[in-house]
């Protein structure tokens, strides 16, 4: 008899290992005041942080402001950077908390679909596909959108996602499951309409 453990498996195979060694060196150099380290850190992490910011804010300008805030904070952190073990998680957590602090002040009344564009060999025109994904993501609550981007696009494990968004592994996995289920329905509906 085979018992299906599918609901209890908290990985979807999109988690990717990352090499934190160089990042740790760069943080140590930044803590010592070496400006070149910041440029290299930016080149390594800005795009990823920007995507995370975009998932949270849904606005390009706000996402860029968030990324900038993270790097400004980073340079002001000082010796504490020497103790960072997982730099990528650390930076994303910083972005998350910055957003949580700023959210009280930023009024996001307008919903702007500017999240993604689909590349590669798509059967349908890229524009339509991009609108589909963007709309589906746009329909999700903020915390579900965040976990989708962090897990699928950035390759963080649910444990890491939970840690950097301040929830448990199970909550992160649950949010992801709900988000994917919802996106599946939305994308299916949109495809059916075409």
């Amino acid at each position, binding site marked *: 008899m085979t018992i299906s453990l599918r609901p209890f498996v908290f990985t*979807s195979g*999109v988690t990717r290992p990352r090499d934190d060694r160089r990042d740790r060196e760069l943080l140590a150099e*930044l*803590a*010592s*005041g*070496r*400006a070149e*380290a*910041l*440029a290299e850190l*930016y080149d390594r992490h*800005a*795009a990823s942080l*920007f*995507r995370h910011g*975009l998932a949270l804010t849904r606005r*390009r300008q706000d*996402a*860029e402001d968030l*990324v*900038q805030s993270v*790097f*400004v904070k*980073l*340079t002001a952190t*000082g*010796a*504490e950077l*020497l*103790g960072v*073990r997982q730099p990528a998680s650390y930076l994303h957590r910083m972005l998350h908390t910055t957003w949580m602090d700023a959210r009280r002040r930023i009024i996001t009344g307008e919903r702007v679909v*500017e*999240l*993604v*564009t*689909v*590349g*590669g060999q798509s059967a349908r025109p890229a524009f339509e*596909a*991009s609108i589909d*994904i963007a709309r589906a993501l746009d329909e999700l609550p903020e915390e579900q959108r965040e976990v*989708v981007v962090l897990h*699928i*696009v950035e390759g963080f494990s649910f444990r890491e996602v939970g840690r950097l968004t301040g929830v448990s592994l199970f909550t992160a996995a649950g949010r992801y499951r709900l988000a*994917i*289920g919802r*996106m*599946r329905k939305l*994308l*299916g509906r949109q*495809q059916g309409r075409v």
Partner: protein
Amino acid sequence: MNSKETERLILQARWPEPSEELRARVLAEATALPQSIVWSDRVWFSRAWRWSMAAIVIAVLAMRAWPVSPAAGAPDPSPRALADARAIEETGRDIGLPEAFTASLAHRALTRSRPRAMTFSAPTLQFLDLEETRRD
């Protein structure tokens, strides 16, 4: 459309990149100030150092909990042993033995209950034999 397909679609999506102006803005604004990292910072934020400190604390606590000598960990003498020791002292005083010798005998009586080999010196054995013959 199943979950895997949805994941694949999201993964294939090409996300916008941050603008070039952002890079210039970040590097201009977030200027790394020259900071002096002193050795105490390096030590404090070093994981190896923190682990070794924790190990030292545990070792010190363990050493304190450990008895200093086997005698220190031994149980207190029983009331019977105490009564014996007191009787020896009184008897020794009555028969006019030197005080040091009486005290040593009393001490032996106290430690007799502990599981340890008891050895008497030759003069003591002679004295005890003498006492026995006198009583007989």
